[in-house]
């Protein structure tokens, strides 16, 4: 990954620069537009939206849509609001992220410091698994979750996200440990340190940055997943994205756009917070997932 921060040597004239700034600002508006629409409309009464005021600031500011989206709105058949589904997502994300990151770290350590025959082929198989269209595993996965008694439950989703997340976490740690000096590992081995001791004392202390990348990537992906949630956990065990979609698509009663927008922001808040707090690592994760090495 090119991390150099040198500026280009290209020089531009005043007119060109003005145009460049103009285009950049226009695109900034384009990217901000949906967020603006969501925020302002989640804070106004419904009639201000239906009356044609979608782009206006609220005339009457209200938090009522937020309260409704969180604890009252009709999701499926129950008027529970999004709250229970938000907790479903938390319960799904925390173990899935933790387990996949730990396994990814160990795998990366083995694949770089304890190399064996055909390890690259195995890694290639794991890597390809990151990119398969998940439609290809939906049917057998539904069967297996049913047999294991995990269908419709948060634990079923934990298993699914663990299985399909390991490829990426292994990729991160493998690329990171690949440049870690192997001599240190060999020296420790000669001193009699074992497999786990070396990992614990030598590699782990310097793994902070890549662990952050892995956690953020997994968190964002798993939180935002819809396909697995919709396929395996519709109903009470549904994650936030599925519940939000149910809320927005429900065809009964008046469409409460302001509540939909508030719900959408609620679903977006955790990943947005992560992005705001640790955006640098988020971008590194994205890049490592595409431009390897």
């Amino acid at each position, binding site marked *: *990954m*090119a*991390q*150099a921060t*040198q500026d280009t*040597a*290209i*020089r*531009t004239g005043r007119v060109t620069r003005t145009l460049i700034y103009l*285009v*950049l600002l226009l*695109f*900034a508006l384009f990217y901000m537009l*949906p967020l603006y629409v*969501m925020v302002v*409309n989640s804070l106004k009464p419904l009639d201000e939206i*239906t009356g*044609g005021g*979608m782009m206006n600031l609220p005339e009457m500011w209200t938090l009522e849509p937020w309260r409704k989206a969180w604890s009252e709105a009709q999701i499926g058949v129950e008027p529970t609001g999004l709250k229970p589904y938000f907790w479903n997502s938390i319960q799904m994300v925390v173990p899935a992220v933790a387990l996949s990151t730990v396994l990814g770290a160990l*795998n990366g350590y*083995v*694949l770089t410091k*304890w190399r*064996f025959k055909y390890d*690259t082929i195995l*890694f290639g198989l794991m890597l390809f698994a990151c*990119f*398969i*269209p998940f*439609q*290809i*595993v939906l*049917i*057998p*996965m539904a069967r297996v979750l049913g047999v294991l008694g995990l269908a419709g439950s948060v634990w079923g989703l934990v298993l699914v996200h663990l299985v399909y997340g*390991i*490829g990426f976490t292994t990729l991160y740690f493998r690329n990171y440990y690949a440049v870690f000096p192997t001599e240190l590992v060999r020296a420790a081995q000669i001193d009699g340190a*074992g497999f786990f001791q070396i990992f614990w004392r030598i590699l782990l202390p310097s793994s902070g940055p890549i662990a952050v990348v892995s956690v953020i990537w997994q968190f964002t992906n798993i939180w*935002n997943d*819809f*396909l697995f949630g919709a*396929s395996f956990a519709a109903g009470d065990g549904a994650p936030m*994205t599925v519940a*939000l*979609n149910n809320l*927005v698509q429900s065809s009964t009663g008046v469409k409460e756009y302001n509540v*939909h*927008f508030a719900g*959408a*922001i609620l*679903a*977006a808040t955790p*990943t947005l917070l992560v*992005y705001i707090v640790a*955006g640098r690592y988020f*971008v590194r994760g*994205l890049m490592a997932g*595409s*431009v*390897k090495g």
Partner: protein
Amino acid sequence: MATRAEADFRTRLQNWIPKLVLSPSLAMMLVFVYGFIAFTVYLSFTDSRMLPSYGWVGWENYSKLWRLSHWEISLTNMAIFAGLYIVICTAIGLMLAIFLDQKIRGEGFLRPLYLYPMALSFIVTGTAWKWFLDPGIGLENVMHTWGWESFSFDWIKNRDFAIYTVILAAVWQTSGFVMAMFLAGLRGIDNEILKAAQMDGASNWNLYRRIIIPQLRPAFLSAFVILAHLAIKTFDLVIALTGGGPGRATELPATFMYSYTFTRNQMGIGAASAVIMLITIAAIMIPYLYAELREKK
């Protein structure tokens, strides 16, 4: 003697530990990825309907699939969607990266603004655009209340144009990411060559066309692979934005597979469509991953 045997055992254990540690992940991968792929491929040759069933029907599901107008629509939509999505994202990403690279004041402020959509769920993106583009309450209605009575923008409800609203929302979500990939590439380019070419009197246009953009080849390749694979997997965005409609106007292979498998009880055909999706992605990803892994050796 005893100590030697113990030492032997210890070294042998040490040799086995790495493989033992790796084995749960490998086992999971072999079963849940490759085993499941094999199972789905097998199902695509069976008469499975609501539940998996094991009556062998040969290529029947595939020949049925290719005769379905629903599948044909999905593929046509995929061609339009993937083509425009990849081209537009790449164009916008490259342009923004080049512009941001001109010692722009506020770059540190603009970059995160361009990239944040990538952190959102497609369901959130779909919800926001769905209502913004809705003629009844969104842009069209706003323009009417602002006095532009004849303004009309009903693409999301229009069979011929709905697919373009999916492209719009998808471009909004990922073009910032493509920008970041190109920007990283631009920042890695050696300024000395540029300075030398400038001395020779090369114009900025020529510098970009002849020196800089050719050097971004790896970034172009990565962007293409990532975008193509995202396009083929697009599912949630369509569900949230249009639900595949109006009619079937925005159905894609991923939504086709889902509805045939889970709501229309045609699991055999659903499995066949999933196999075709996998083959398409494999045709793009395998050469790319192969090249990446070989390079690193």
